[in-house]
């Protein structure tokens, strides 16, 4: 299925996906460890004056968590889409490139040096992501330009090196801290940074909008870097821009929710099957589709073993791996 990416089609697809997202959010709002009738959820949502238990649950717990899932889902999916186009490699995603491992090292390091300030961990995670991103970029550059294979290899080796560092730090941390970190490493949305959401949300939207500016260039880049350069694309500028924005999106997402795997890998593939390869159409589809998928996954994580909760990273991994294998076999055959 491929539609030409006319402005009208883009708006129609984005509109339909947004509608689906709204529906998903509404369904997710009614689900949880506590059974709330639809009417009560609605009342809690539309009348901000009340502070019944239902209102606290819907507005204080479920809604912020769903919002976080939307932002993180969109961020990881768009980052994955951008990186896959940039590197012309369907395996590229923020995790393969080691950026999320860098964020994890940052967060654990913040715990390790002892300062348990609420904001320190996400901030350190972000710094870790940025440092890793610069490091992998410098490693992956070849003759002044990004080389796809070198970059991916640099990312993979950096990721495994950082994983070793994480294990080393975990053995030195007290059991008390490891418990929290272990959950965070698996990818977890149960700790919603409500205050930080006001900064994370707009930052993610801005970064996605920034990436969309490169949509046309990414289409041309799919033909190959040299061809794109012949066609008048400033390849170096696109590479640096997309790389920085994708890393930014990953850093923000990982700092808020830990390592949620497979989303950045899977959603771009699903998106291409749905709307084709034109990034003007693919990027909004991936953003909204990623948001929908993560909201659904987290709803499952909240309800599958209620009142206990699963880390959402476990849900995305369990669901993501088989889907990915299926897609792989289908496109190969």
């Amino acid at each position: 299925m491929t539609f030409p990416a006319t402005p009208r089609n883009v708006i129609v697809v984005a509109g339909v996906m947004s509608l689906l997202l709204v529906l998903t959010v509404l369904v997710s709002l009614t689900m949880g460890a506590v059974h709330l009738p639809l009417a009560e959820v609605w009342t809690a949502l539309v009348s901000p004056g009340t502070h019944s238990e239902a209102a606290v649950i819907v507005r204080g717990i479920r809604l912020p968590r769903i919002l976080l899932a939307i932002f993180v889902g969109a961020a990881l999916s768009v980052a994955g889409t951008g990186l896959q186009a940039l590197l012309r490699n369907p395996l590229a995603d923020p995790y393969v490139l080691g950026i999320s491992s860098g964020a994890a090292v940052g967060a654990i390091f913040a715990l390790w040096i002892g300062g348990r300030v609420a904001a320190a961990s996400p901030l350190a995670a972000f710094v870790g992501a940025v440092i890793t991103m610069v490091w992998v970029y410098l490693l992956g550059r070849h003759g002044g330009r990004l080389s796809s294979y070198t970059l991916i290899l640099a990312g993979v080796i950096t990721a495994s090196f950082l994983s070793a560092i994480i294990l080393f730090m975990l053995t030195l941390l007290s059991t008390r801290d490891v418990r929290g970190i272990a959950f965070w490493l698996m990818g977890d949305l149960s700790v919603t940074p409500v205050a930080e959401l006001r900064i994370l949300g707009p930052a993610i939207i801005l970064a996605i909008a920034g990436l969309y500016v490169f949509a046309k260039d990414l289409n041309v880049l799919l033909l190959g870097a040299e061809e794109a350069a012949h066609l008048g694309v400033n390849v170096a500028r696109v590479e640096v821009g997309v790389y920085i924005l994708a890393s930014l999106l990953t850093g923000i997402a990982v700092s808020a929710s830990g390592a949620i795997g497979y989303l950045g890998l899977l959603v771009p593939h699903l998106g291409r099957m749905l709307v084709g390869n034109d990034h003007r159409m693919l990027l909004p589809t991936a953003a909204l589709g990623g948001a929908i998928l993560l909201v659904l996954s987290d709803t499952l994580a909240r309800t599958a073993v209620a009142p206990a909760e699963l880390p959402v990273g476990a849900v995305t991994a369990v669901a993501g791996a088989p889907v990915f294998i299926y897609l792989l076999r289908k496109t190969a055959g």
Partner: protein
Amino acid sequence: MRDTLRACAGLAFFMVTYEMHSAQVSSRPFGVNPGGGATVLLCVLAATLSILLPPAVSARTVKDQTGRSVNVPDNPHRLVSLAPNITEIVYALGLGDELVGDTDYCDFPPQAKNKPHIGTMVNPSLERIVALKADLALGTPEANRRETADQLERLGIPLYGVTASTLAGTLASIDDLGKILGRASEARSLVAEMQARIDRVEKRIEGQPKPKVLFVVWYRPLITVGPRTFIADVIRAAGGTPIGENLKGEWPRLTLEELLPQNPDVILLPKTESFSPSMEEFQSLPGWKDLRAVKERRMFFVSETVMRPGPRLVDALEELAGVLHPTVALKTGERQ
């Protein structure tokens, strides 16, 4: 905090009405006054914030044992326990009826199993806790995450934390919870009774040799207890010497190399549902058959009460004393 916001909202509302009034008096067109716009914004902001926060109840701010400032209500009567040992303490203080929820792992006393469950210690369901209308949650950093405390605080449910990482700390946490929950005298007498039983064991085993004890938390890899834990305390109080005095952390790993020269006289294994290997399995572990405790067949399963720093920790103490000093110690439950 809530009160401050409420006061802000009130003040802002007053200022807006006042400015609207003065605007009318000075016949200035409404909306041109820039200060008015700012106050309206402030008013809306403060009002929204005060609505988002739950209503204030009479409370006092205290520092809990973990060092957090907690707004504890004066008469908490809807308690949620976030750890099995705390559930036991709440029941022992006669507050079983006030407990409205506990964790999936709270199994003692048996009626604790029938309370509404809020999930696991590490990742409880916040919305369950809210739906139970809890006015005070009780937790411990040994079992819960700090993030849970932060989230509950945001939702207006105070979490009071106690630390029970040593034997003395366990007694202190019971005493502390008694004070917070308005059962200070009950807590005092419970602690006094526990202390009397500890003293009685101490008197009984006086002058006895102190066997070297290996406590096995897990065996593949071998994990034992650190010297500064309540389990090590209980072993010492029961007249044993826990091996690994120089180990670091709460649940350190022990290699065979470190274990062999220490050569424990007694090996203790807590019996739990998830941990019930056979004695033969241990004896067949590489290197173990040369240990004195294995050769002399002084390996014992003990009840898992010893892993729970609550009122029954003295039961575990008497049980351990009986295992380590079978000739002189009282049997569990035996009274003088």
